[in-house]
């Protein structure tokens, strides 16, 4: 199902020049900040960085950048028609691209988050934060890949979802947790350590994450199946 050539091309697009530096900046920033603060203060001072900044902002931003880098530029300059004219299942194209986006989100998003958690406190809650980041990162990458296949303004739409829906409204209305990727991840992490909040219930969190992940990749393939190239609006 996964096409190695497409995966390789997507990885090259992701690691090409400036994009790579922007992607690398996030984990470096997060880990450096946690290490500095932990070194300069006593106790748990650095921990609030994770629920306040690392998990709700850095992780989704990495996922947005990764997901839109594997599909966005090709849609933007129209070279995707050359890919789509090959006799390869569009779902295989979507899946191959998602694998790259997912791997990048794990390496540049979830892993540094786990490292920061270990530095800032360690113990059960670090493993819990790591697990939450893996779950949410996986879901985010599939969701944002689907968004990239729908609209040219994928980055800004994804950011609206993360910053306005999950961030701004999520803080005001507790019901948003039922429809928030970050909260699903946290709920699953809560199973490992009770220091994480438990906004919904586990079956819902697991099922919703799974449905959005599988559905996102499938939907992306489906959109590519009936893809039409439009001019800039």
């Amino acid at each position, binding site marked *: 199902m996964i096409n190695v050539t497409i995966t390789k091309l997507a990885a090259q697009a992701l690691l090409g020049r400036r994009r790579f530096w922007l992607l690398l*900046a996030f984990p470096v920033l997060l880990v450096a*900040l946690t290490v500095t603060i932990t070194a300069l*203060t006593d106790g748990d001072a650095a921990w*609030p960085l994770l629920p306040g900044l690392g998990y709700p*902002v850095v992780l989704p931003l990495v996922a947005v950048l990764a997901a839109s880098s594997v599909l966005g530029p090709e849609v*933007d300059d129209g070279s995707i028609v050359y890919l789509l004219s090959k006799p390869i299942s569009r779902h295989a194209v979507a899946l191959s691209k998602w694998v790259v986006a997912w791997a990048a989100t794990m390496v540049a998003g979830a892993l540094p988050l786990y490292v920061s958690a270990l530095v800032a406190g360690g113990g059960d809650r670090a493993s819990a934060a790591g697990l939450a980041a893996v779950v949410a990162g996986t879901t985010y990458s599939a969701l944002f890949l689907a968004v990239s296949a729908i609209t040219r303004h*994928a*980055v800004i739409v994804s*950011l609206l979802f993360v910053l306005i829906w999950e961030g701004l409204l999520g803080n005001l209305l507790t019901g948003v947790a039922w429809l928030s990727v970050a909260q699903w991840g946290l709920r699953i992490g809560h199973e490992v350590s009770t220091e994480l909040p438990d906004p919904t219930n586990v079956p819902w969190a697991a099922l919703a994450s799974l449905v959005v992940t599988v559905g996102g990749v499938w939907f992306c393939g489906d959109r590519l199946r009936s893809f039409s190239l439009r001019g800039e*609006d």
Partner: protein
Amino acid sequence: MAEQRAGVIHDLGYRHYDGPREGVATIARTLYVTGLRHAFGLGRSGKSKILPFLLLALCTLPAAIVVGVVTIVGLSELPLTYAGYTNQVQLLISLFAAAQAPVLFSRDLRHRSIVLYLARPLPAYVIALTRWASLATALLVFSVLPLLVLYTGGLLAGLDVGEQTTDLLKALALLLLVASMLAGITGFISSVSLRRGFAVVGSIVALVVVPGVVTAVQAITSEEDADQVGVVAGLASPWSLTNGLASAWEAGVTVFTPPAGGWVVVYLAVAVLVAAAGLAAIVARFLKVGSQ
């Protein structure tokens, strides 16, 4: 044919235009107005209008609700100040700047239509300044509109005119700084990173992630009784500069480590410098592209 005419490349020998010519100033003004309209999606496709107006609605709606509450409950003052309101919606202002800066700065450069502008008697630096002015004005309109709703509603509900006006003027002064800084930063990022997506992510890093880091650092330093470190950290992002100044001017914003004494002057100077540096960088970028 021998007579010299300046600045126009098309001369196919047809009968030419003898009427009055409006100079560089008119071209610049037209470009400015068009840019301002484009920032809100006016004069562009219907789809381009969705995002700016959605953000504008999200930004203004709470102000209307506040006015409604003040009127119905009969409060004697607004539950939050004008600068406090801007502080609450700073995420929306950042998103608007990040989303609309590529519209003004990336498209001409990416599609090289900039050479068509440069073929006209408008120098590259004037184009850069005009673009910056369009974006800064758009940001100002975007952020001042909800404050005007609050102000008008507040006055109609019978609040104290002098007090409200002083508060509003403080907020307006801050917003002038914010608009100049944000237009400079996002404009420069968008004119360097021509792919829309990366320009947006870059701007979000500068306007959301970095201020978030600064706030976290300030919270920690204030807890650790190292306030001076937090005050210095506040110099690192446009929003922490603005909020620091707002708290120093008693405009109704609280920060973890408020600047005091000489630091207020430093904050103001750095804010002006950031705006000027952003503008200078945009001009340099356009001059470089224009000479290629």
